[in-house]
């Protein structure tokens, strides 16, 4: 509960040094998190602008607003920006960066300079890719399928790929930093099974980042070698195999789906616990489900290739493994739901996002079963069904989790409260806009509308118009938080150290926290989410 007379603490990480240099040379994980916040927010709105143009074009069946060439570039750049420069870094590099050291009672990440280097590497990669966009863009799709990307496309494949290659290293270094930090820097008494589930899910994510991203890097190098020097690795005319590219690409890019969604699951575990004031039901099961997803996630890449000329038996293996990866996800959903039972449930904005996440992720996950069923995948793959499915996971899941987390920890990050009423309204707008945008796409896909089509048969128009209308609502929904969060930075009410009455080490320090996070190292003698019978003891 916000204390009536709360004042900002006299010294905290935001007033510990002013000027551009104090930010660009900072080694404070909290400031680096904010640098990332600026980066990912920029790419979210750039990628979103491309999405707006895509939906505008698709409002009519004829390809009339932009040319086919431009349209292909729009969906390519939307995908590249959103996946590599927003979704992958968003939660780990912003919320993870800010919170992991605080949640485990540490002063910083294990390698603060490496953390800053990660941000610079991300920005350099981003600069290459933006340069590719400014030079005229690229048209390969974010998936860069060969031999189109190696022998046919005449667009800026190399600079864009170079950007993704470079950014991958920031991902690897962030993952490395998290793993070492979580192993070595936990506060006294903070055993593995006392860790918040946010930490578990980030640990699982970091493992994927470190193990998966190098495969993406080598794949990009091979594409560049084929394109620049005609190595022919993926070119069948000289004995290469274009499908080999898909194996390599999805060996990274399927686990990358879990890089995007596992951290959001971690956020949702925190939100559900905090806004039910209750321990997460089945803590150990949720924790191990994260690791289970991370491990199984490496074994299912072939389900992206059921129609790509794979053998029937390979398809069987990938199908059954894909069904298995659904189990830990289902376990999480059931545990979150059970956590709400007999909770003390508040309807504050972050909880609305958490509820939105659970509902939309459930639909996203269940429609994944359609795609794991090989005989049915044949019909719906490469259609709008796929587009709808992964947007339910990526937008309905990851972005809902990200926004929920951003609202929950915003008072900690900024020291101030945003306008709760406006925040609830925009959460509802986002939820409605999202469903109107993407639900019709499931139907479109089942009816047979292929993805990546600039023009389409007229019978698909009604559903496309609904989708485009939804997108305009969704777009407005995303702009509102941008505005009131900025506003709150200056005019928001002072939050106090624990505005939600939540437990967790991050609420045991001031808002904003001091540069070293805690004035004295905390000693942990309690389990995660252990609420005392009276809450007063935890309101600072």
């Amino acid at each position, binding site marked *: 509960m916000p204390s009536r007379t709360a004042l900002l603490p006299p010294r905290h990480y935001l007033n510990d040094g002013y000027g551009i240099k104090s930010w660009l040379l900072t080694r404070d994980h909290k400031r680096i998190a904010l640098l990332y916040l600026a980066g990912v927010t920029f790419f979210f709105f750039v990628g979103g602008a491309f999405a707006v143009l895509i939906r505008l074009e698709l409002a009519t069946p004829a390809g009339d607003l932009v040319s086919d060439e431009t349209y292909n570039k729009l969906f390519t750049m939307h995908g590249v920006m959103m996946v590599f420069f927003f979704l992958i870094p968003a939660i780990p590099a912003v919320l993870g960066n800010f919170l992991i050291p605080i949640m485990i009672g540490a002063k910083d990440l294990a390698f603060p300079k490496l953390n800053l280097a990660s941000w610079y590497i991300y920005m350099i990669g981003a600069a290459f890719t933006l340069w590719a966009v400014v030079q005229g863009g690229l048209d390969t799709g974010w998936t860069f399928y060969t031999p189109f990307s190696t022998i046919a496309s005449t667009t800026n494949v190399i600079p864009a790929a170079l950007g993704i290659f470079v950014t991958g290293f920031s991902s690897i270094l962030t993952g490395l930093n998290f793993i070492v930090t979580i192993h070595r820097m936990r506060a006294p008494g903070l055993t593995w099974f006392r860790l918040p589930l946010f930490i578990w899910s980030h640990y699982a994510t970091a493992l994927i980042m470190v193990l998966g991203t190098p495969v993406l890097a080598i794949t990009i190098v091979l594409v560049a070698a084929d394109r620049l020097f005609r190595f022919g690795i993926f070119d069948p005319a000289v004995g290469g195999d274009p499908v080999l590219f898909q194996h390599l690409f999805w060996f990274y890019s399927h686990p990358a789906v879990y890089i995007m969604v596992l951290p959001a699951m971690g956020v949702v575990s925190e939100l559900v616990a905090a806004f039910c004031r209750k321990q997460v039901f089945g803590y150990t099961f949720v924790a191990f489900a994260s690791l289970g997803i991370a491990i199984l996630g490496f074994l299912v890449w072939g389900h992206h290739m059921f129609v790509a000329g794979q053998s029937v038996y390979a398809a069987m293996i990938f199908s059954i493994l894909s069904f298995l990866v659904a189990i830990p996800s289902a376990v999480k959903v059931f545990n979150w739901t059970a956590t709400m039972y007999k909770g003390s449930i508040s309807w504050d904005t972050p909880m609305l996002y958490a509820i939105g996440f659970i509902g939309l992720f459930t639909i996203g996950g269940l429609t994944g079963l359609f795609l794991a069923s090989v005989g049915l995948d044949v019909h719906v793959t490469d259609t709008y069904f796929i587009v709808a499915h992964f947007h339910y996971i990526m937008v309905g899941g990851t972005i809902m989790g990200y926004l929920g987390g951003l609202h929950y920890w915003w008072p900690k990050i900024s020291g101030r409260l945003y306008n709760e009423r406006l925040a609830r309204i925009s959460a509802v707008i986002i939820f409605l806009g999202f469903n109107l945008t993407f639900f019709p796409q499931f139907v479109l896909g089942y009816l047979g509308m292929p993805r990546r089509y600039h023009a389409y048969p007229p019978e698909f128009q009604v559903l496309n118009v609904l989708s485009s209308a939804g997108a305009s609502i969704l777009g407005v929904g995303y702009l509102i938080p941008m505005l009131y969060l900025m506003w709150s930075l200056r005019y928001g009410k002072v939050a106090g150290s624990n505005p939600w009455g939540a437990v967790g080490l991050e609420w045991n320090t001031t808002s904003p926290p001091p540069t070293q996070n805690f004035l004295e190292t905390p000693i942990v003698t309690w389990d995660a989410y252990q609420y005392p019978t009276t*809450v007063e003891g935890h309101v600072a």
Partner: protein
Amino acid sequence: MAARVDNLYFFLLGLTVFFSLLIAGLIVAYAIKFRRRSPDAIGAVIHGGLMLEITWSVIPLMITMVLFVWGASVFFAMSRPPAETLNVYVVGKQWMWKFQHLDGQREINELHVPVGRPVKLIMTSEDVIHDVFVPAFRVKADVLPGRYTNIWFEPTKPGTYHLFCAEYCGTRHSGMTGQVVVMEPNDYQNWLSGGAGEGSLAAAGQKLFSDLACNTCHRPDAQGRGPVLQNLFGKTVELASGERVVADEAYIRESILNPHAKITVGFQPIMPTFQGLVTEEQLLELIEYVKTLKQDTTNAQ
């Protein structure tokens, strides 16, 4: 086949609706029933329950295994064409579909087939990856350069159906569409006799076979410097390396373009490559000709 796919689809749809409503219903009900009534209230102390965890792991596991078997059985049926099919060769290129019928008819972006007969498409690409997708028949398969992939379907109702390229292939990807025209058998016969004029696909292959002088080495009498091709298609060939391969479309294609890759036991690697000398369509003519050679010898005996 479309009905089998749809049955699975609607079962899954029911399952999705059931679980979505279950979860959404519980969440909303709990959110209302257990809403915070005083600012200091906390939730009940509940850690978890092993039985519940087991229940909600095992039930989804069983459901997904049923789905796996169901989905796999549909896929098996899709992957195994009946023995007797009407074969049509398909070549995809940026940005059009070329169809070659065995009787010699050639079509672009339009495929005529009779109702009630299983049709098999044997497909390859001249450039990048494409994908044949006929939503009405619930079939889809990538069309790959340098390889042959198949799909089959049995049209049950005359009509005109969408044909889409479903794998992004560049600028005019969304223009790489066409239609499948399903005709009554009589109309189909009329259509067949109305087109062509160039002779059958195999006849074109035969002409090419002698124009390229393949017949000087590949003789039917086992006296040539190359293996006898009569009766070859579909048989197992023993290679000089000791391996055995089935002489399918891909093997014949490879043997024309990259003859030294798989040398038949007892022969010298002396055949030159025809890479760059024959087009994808001519390759298909040659393959079709080799296939018919099988029947010629049986007739001769």
